[in-house]
């Protein structure tokens, strides 16, 4: 579904992504983990088009999108939810979702977009907040809105950037359920996460990054047993 080959990005002297190879298969939930500064968010920005790579190639559904601007990637079915939730504060929840529904696919009429919002708002449990200003939501509601807005663009592959960060365990559990429901509705998911229980509960496959490189790949238990991964998280035992 998504194929990343030799992707690199430097900021001055810092190598944020170095020859990253990655495959996302249709229908799976793939987790990207790694210590702080490992380059996970940079990878996501490269995938969603907010950053352009220095070298490498990104293919989505068989077509190259390496240089495509963010909106074109969204139209092709690559959705994204942000780590730091950024709702449009002067719009209601309903209007926020409507933006995603209207512009996620070109030439969507208001009528069709409202239908999309109606479906998504039910799925994400935001119906009672439809007319609330997005600037007045709680953190959990913000996170739901962020997810819902991305869903409104009708993605085939959804990129989630630490959407559980800051949630209480019970809330995180709820969010895990939500991501599962999203996958079951036919959306492939790539997510970045710090909370290991969440990774264990959700991921079909895990990719571990450190210093901008992919250092391990496999099931949760495989990577958890990998000495390189332990080293990356706990430091070198010398």
């Amino acid at each position, binding site marked *: 579904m998504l194929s990343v080959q030799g992707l690199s990005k430097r900021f001055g002297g810092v190598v944020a992504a170095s020859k990253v190879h990655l495959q996302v298969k249709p229908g799976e939930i793939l987790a990207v983990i790694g210590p702080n500064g490992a380059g996970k968010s940079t990878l996501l920005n490269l995938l*969603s*088009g*907010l950053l352009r790579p220095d070298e490498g190639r990104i293919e989505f559904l068989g077509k190259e999108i390496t240089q495509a*601007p*963010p*909106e074109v990637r*969204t*139209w092709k079915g690559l959705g*994204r939810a*942000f780590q730091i939730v*950024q709702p*449009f*504060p*002067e*719009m*209601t929840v*309903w*209007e926020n979702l*409507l*933006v*995603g529904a*209207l*512009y*996620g*696919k*070109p030439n*969507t*009429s*208001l009528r069709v*977009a409202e239908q999309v919002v109606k479906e998504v708002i039910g799925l994400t449990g935001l119906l009672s907040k439809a*007319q609330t*200003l997005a600037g007045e939501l709680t953190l959990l509601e913000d996170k739901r809105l962020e997810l819902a*807005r*991305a869903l*409104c*663009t009708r993605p085939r592959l959804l990129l989630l950037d630490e959407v559980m960060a800051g949630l209480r365990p019970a809330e995180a559990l709820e969010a895990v359920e939500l991501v599962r429901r999203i996958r079951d509705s036919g959306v492939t998911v790539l997510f970045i996460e710090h909370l290991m229980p969440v990774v264990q509960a959700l991921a079909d496959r895990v990719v571990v990054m450190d210093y901008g490189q992919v250092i391990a790949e496999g099931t949760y238990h495989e990577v958890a047993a990998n000495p390189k991964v332990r080293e990356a998280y706990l430091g070198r035992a010398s």
Partner: protein
Amino acid sequence: MILAGLLLLLALVLPGLPLGEWRAFLLDTAQFAFLISALALAWDLLARTGQLSLAHGAFFGLGAYAAALTAPPMGTLLALLIGGIVAASFSLLLGLATLRLHGMYFAIATLAFSEVMRTLVLKATFTGGAIGLPVQPAFGGALPLGSYYLAVAVLALATGVSLLLGKSRLHYAMAATRQGEAVARVLGVPVVRVKLLAFMISAFLAGLAGGVYAMKTLFLSPYDAFGLGRAVEALVISIFGGLYTTTGPLLGGLIIVSLETWLRLRIGEGYLVVYGVILVLSILFLPKGLVGLFHRKGVGHA
């Protein structure tokens, strides 16, 4: 919406009312208020994408000069259209050059553009330069109220476009661009196209208003037509009336221009002081403008 309709209806029948000895003065003031309100409505359209323009005085001036220069061979209506198109074309160039600028930097770039345009018109010979440019009255003077009704028409058009955009798909794209450009792009909003389109529509309307202004004053000078004060007035009116709305700039424009004219009559130059105090008070106590008094949630369609 109903209010906008009533105001426009009133504008239409105003010349027929028994206005007494003040008739000519009142109609002249009203006409000026219509044009400045149209300019404020145009300015607000661009503001909806988060771009604060100080170039609207220049678009007004470009429309005024273009219409004044093309009216003799082309006729009034075609000349006005050309004025709008010239303003829109310049806005496209300015928009392309300033795409990456936000907030204050964008404002400064538009300010520079405005000054450059004024200097060019001042130095050029075909514009009459510093001496100024006499302008033919609308329709060759055949209709005494010609330019008055043109002003009503331009105001009606600006109001209509503003209302229409407020109900369209574009409304959401513009508001999203203003409130979070990067997020808007990731959600699929073609931010560049949205900004340029808003800029061109906005400048076109400003140019139209300028063209009618030329046919009303019958004389243009670069200092008047390209004055920075006009862009500032459009900004002040929109903030006073209520940003990102139709009723706000429309009502705000009529009130502010009337107030300004009345104060100028009563206390001469001192009017600026009173004007300033009223504005400071309204910004302090009416942060959402006049329409904020009838507050509704969301990006609204007030």
